[in-house]
């Protein structure tokens, strides 16, 4: 009874915050509510007994996405610089009312249809859970979610790493710079924050490694570990540490593709030996999975950090700004 009440409170809060995120008048309020939405969603994952996703959501929805949005909001709110080019466009003051009416009707129709469909869902206990548990022994890991991610559906994970790589490449393309070496070194932050980051970094690395190690038998794994690692890199940057700016171009590139490459290498070698792509050797499966996960962790961490860092000021921007000041 308590449980269902809690569920209802969670869901009501999700809908309330979701609605306010999208329809509050103030953009900053919307971003704060979005962070809160992520937090409530993480609690919902906990209630739904999906701690793996809760960890991921805590790191992504509540922290990383929040940082991205706050950064973007700050930039989009500030008055743009005029020297870039003469402005040829302006925002439309308001949309025609038939547009608003149409979108409202469309959303309501979709909502009604979806609600009917959900109510009609047969309560059949289907799913692949039993199959996963039956094959868990031979998968090389003891945690079912890791087994699905790395073994049964490893192909999806491989392509997902490709998507991550693409996102960073896309951002670099937009910024018209070839790699993260073109970033200007970070600006120094306050001493208090820097001290905190100094103190907390070992903990971040520890937690990242811990999550990676836990993934073999309990909730955790490459993605969660990677997000924590990436967040740690962003923290370092925000605190003004220059260590990341000193990584060489080759290092950046290799770190970015390491996970994708590891999957590719393992898949190809198993294709050569057994004729099956991404098949694990029964004997060494857990070791292979652990190596893959480590590579993926490094890549995911670098990539997610790259998603934020690639948007920071570039060296050429800085010199441009200095010229403008003079």
């Amino acid at each position: 009874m308590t449980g269902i009440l809690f569920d209802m409170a969670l869901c009501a809060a999700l809908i309330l915050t979701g609605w306010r995120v999208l329809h509050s008048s103030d953009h900053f309020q919307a971003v704060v509510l979005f962070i809160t939405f992520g937090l409530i969603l993480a609690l919902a994952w906990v209630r739904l007994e999906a701690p793996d996703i809760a960890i991921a959501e805590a790191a992504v929805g509540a922290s990383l996405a929040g940082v991205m949005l706050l950064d973007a909001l700050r930039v989009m709110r500030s008055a743009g610089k005029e020297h870039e080019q003469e402005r040829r466009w302006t925002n439309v003051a308001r949309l025609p009312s038939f547009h608003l009416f149409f979108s409202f009707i469309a959303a309501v129709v979709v909502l009604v249809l979806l609600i009917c469909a959900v109510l009609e869902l047969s309560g059949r206990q289907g799913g692949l859970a039993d199959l996963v548990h039956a094959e868990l022994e031979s998968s090389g890991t003891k945690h079912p979610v890791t087994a699905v991610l790395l073994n049964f559906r490893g192909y999806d994970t491989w392509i997902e790493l490709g998507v991550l790589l693409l996102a960073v490449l896309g951002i670099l393309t937009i910024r018209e710079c070839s790699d993260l070496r073109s970033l200007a070194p970070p600006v120094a932050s306050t001493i208090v924050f820097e001290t905190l980051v100094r103190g907390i970094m070992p903990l971040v690395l520890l937690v990242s490694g811990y999550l990676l190690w836990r993934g073999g038998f309990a909730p955790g794994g490459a993605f969660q570990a990677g997000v924590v690692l990436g967040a740690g890199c962003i923290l370092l940057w925000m605190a003004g540490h220059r260590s990341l700016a000193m990584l060489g171009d080759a290092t950046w590139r290799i770190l970015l593709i390491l996970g994708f490459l590891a999957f590719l290498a393992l898949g190809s070698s198993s294709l050569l030996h057994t004729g099956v792509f991404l098949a694990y050797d029964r004997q060494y499966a857990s070791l292979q999975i652990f190596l893959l996960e480590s590579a993926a962790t490094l890549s995911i961490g670098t990539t997610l950090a790259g998603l934020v860092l690639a948007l920071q000021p570039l060296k050429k921007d800085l010199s441009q700004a200095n010229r403008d000041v003079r």
Partner: protein
Amino acid sequence: MTIWDIFSILFCLAGGVFFLAGVVGMLRFPDAMSRLHALTKADNLGLGFIVFGLCLRSLAVPVIIKLLLIWLTVMLASSTACYLVGNYILQKAEDRPKEN
């Protein structure tokens, strides 16, 4: 129900009271600077009591270590966060002394 459980319940309740105080302060205090104080009470004491109550409940060393680690980190992070926000408010006030 053992004596540990009763203490655990008591500590959790105390933590709950501090969280309640935190949220009431967050709503009732007049400006952002004073609301900082409400936040720290909930962070340090509220979570502290709850962590302590849960430690009494579980009595397993790894869990207790993890719980205490969480509490310590929260104290560090939240005091830094409060410092940063406080600093930000001051700077804002310097930039635009007329506003509000």
